[in-house]
């Protein structure tokens, strides 16, 4: 797994090591150059002073082994070696006076020759001398850094841990959240790197909480509303059991059948409504012709209309293609037409129309029923709201379903009185 701490530590220490190495190398080269100049100067001074001395003054060389880091040679005429402080070293006579490097059996030596009037004086020093000096200087510069390196590592480790501590507390706070307790995480005292994450999490928690509350409310409402039809069924069943005559029993079973149908209808409407919840609908919107949906819904509701002696029809159907969910739109229109038929008196009339207005597709369902009092027009879209019309069976969910589907299509609903101030006119305006 990726770790910010390990990553940070690795790169910081790597950077430090590279920096230290670069410092060491540059110090070494600079020190070597300076040491070389110094050595060369010393060599030259020594050679000049030797060339001014008489030969006899020079110390005789006893040792066969090289003991000193300095060699002096005096060459006479005809390439004759007159004097050598370290015969063992065997530095040849250089063709030209001045500086030169010579490879000997004791490594490379630096030689400076100065030409007198009858002799050549050569003074030599091992090149390793100033390389060692340079290395020592470079080491002196770098060594404190090498000591600091592990300390710095520890410091980085601790700082990163300290810096990441808010993440640990956020983690435990998130862990403490349950579907039942989705209160926001504390956002104060957070470093600005963590704050956006927590803010986004809180946002999500909020939306989740609202969705859960909606669902819970819906389930509570649904359970509550199911009591009524189930109570009816229970009572109808008891009456059926008590029936003493065949006629009584048959009537009781008819009642029971109606009770069960009502419960089934309510469950169906609840499911439809649940499917229209914004969180639940996953179907994509597609180009859909509203006039086609209108014809379909009216055809579907015609048997009910015939049974109730209501004249239902499509009065106007302009082709209107909107972005929509055809199945949902069919459910919406079926609910509207079903309502209109149920609330219409025998001999009533229900008109469905699809027209255009201001770049909107306008769907209207108009009936000749009792209409909805102005005071109730807001509340009729609430789930389970039922007006004072007690004799029309219904779940109280039809218009809530219509509203849910309209919302998904960004459509607006308007309730008005029908033609001549009678009945109800429902207009739904879809953006095209």
């Amino acid at each position: 797994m990726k770790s910010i701490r390990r990553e940070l530590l690795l790169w910081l220490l790597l950077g430090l090591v590279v920096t230290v190495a670069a410092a060491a190398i540059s110090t070494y080269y600079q020190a070597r150059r300076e040491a070389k100049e110094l050595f060369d100067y010393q060599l030259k001074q020594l050679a000049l002073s030797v060339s001014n001395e008489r030969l006899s003054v020079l110390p005789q060389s006893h040792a066969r082994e090289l003991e000193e880091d300095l060699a002096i040679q005096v060459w006479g005429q005809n390439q004759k070696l007159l004097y050598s402080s370290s015969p063992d070293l065997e530095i040849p006579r250089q063709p030209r006076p001045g500086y030169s490097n010579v490879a000997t059996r004791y490594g490379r030596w630096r030689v400076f020759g100065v030409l007198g009037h009858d002799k050549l004086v050569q003074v030599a020093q091992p090149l390793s001398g100033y390389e060692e000096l340079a290395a020592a200087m470079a080491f002196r510069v770098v060594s404190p850094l090498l000591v600091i390196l592990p300390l710095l590592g520890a410091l980085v480790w601790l700082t990163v841990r300290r810096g990441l501590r808010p993440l640990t507390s956020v983690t435990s706070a998130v862990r403490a959240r349950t579907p039942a307790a989705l209160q926001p995480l504390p956002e104060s005292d957070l470093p600005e790197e963590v704050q956006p994450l927590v803010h986004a999490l809180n946002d999500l928690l909020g939306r989740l909480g609202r969705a859960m509350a909606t669902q819970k409310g819906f389930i509570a409402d649904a359970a509550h509303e199911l009591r009524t039809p189930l109570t009816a069924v229970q009572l109808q069943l008891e009456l059926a059991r008590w029936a003493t005559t065949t006629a009584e029993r048959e009537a009781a079973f008819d009642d029971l059948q109606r009770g069960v149908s009502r419960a089934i209808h309510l469950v169906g409407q609840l499911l439809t409504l649940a499917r229209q919840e914004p969180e639940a609908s996953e179907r994509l919107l597609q180009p859909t012709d509203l006039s086609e949906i209108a014809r379909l819904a009216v055809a579907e509701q015609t048997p009910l209309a015939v049974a109730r002696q209501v004249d239902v029809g499509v009065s106007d159907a302009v082709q209107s293609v909107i972005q929509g969910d055809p199945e949902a739109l069919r459910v919406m229109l079926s609910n509207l037409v079903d309502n209109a038929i149920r609330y219409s008196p025998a001999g009533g009339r229900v008109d469905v129309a699809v027209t255009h207005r201001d770049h909107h597709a306008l769907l209207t369902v108009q009936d000749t029923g009792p209409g909805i009092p102005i005071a109730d027009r807001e509340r009729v879209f609430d789930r389970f709201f039922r007006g004072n019309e007690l004799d029309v069976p219904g779940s109280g969910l039809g218009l809530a379903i219509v509203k849910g589907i309209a919302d998904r299509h960004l459509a607006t609903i308007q309730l008005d009185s029908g033609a001549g101030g009678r009945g109800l006119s429902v207009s739904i305006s879809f953006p095209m």
Partner: protein
Amino acid sequence: MRLLLVEDDAMIGQSVHKGLRRFGWSVDWVRDGRAAELALQNEAYDGVLLDLGLPRIDGLEVLRAQRRKGNDIPVLVITARDAIEDRVEGLDVGADDYLVKPFNMEELAARIRALMRRRAGRASPVIALGDLRLNPATREVTLAGKPLALSARELALLSALVDRPGAVLSRSQLEEKLYGWGEEVESNTVEVYIHMLRKKLGADFIRTVRGVGYMVSKSV
């Protein structure tokens, strides 16, 4: 005994109405709060079965208004509101009992009988008066240990009288106990049932108070 049923749901109302009449009680059924207030104002009931979620006036409001007026009629709340707070509120506002939907008819009837028993100040479910024993739950009547076969109307009339021994009930009061709204009442029905009861119970059991009505004595 005459009850007022206040229930907006057509199916539940119809079933309870039918079912309670099988117990020999007469039941008037209204479907909203305003009709309930009107009925309570105009008729004398022995008890009210009150739904809470009512159109026009909420059931709790109806109950509150009755209690404020000093009406101590037994009220059994029948509702889908089952939260503890709802039950507590219902009882505190003045309900005598609280029944949560879905319920069944037997339980509803038993609770109604219990309410009536309490109102009459009896602890025993069996009404005893002299040699007469009347069990409202089983609707069994015995006289000196021997079972009596009574029709539903006879039983209703007898129950009304033995429920308040010593009290004189007028003919119209007794008619109300026998018939709900919309039921045809024949002019001499009460006299007919009184006559039949006297044949079964003995002539002295029910006394006629001339010009006033009928009664059974506390000590027969």
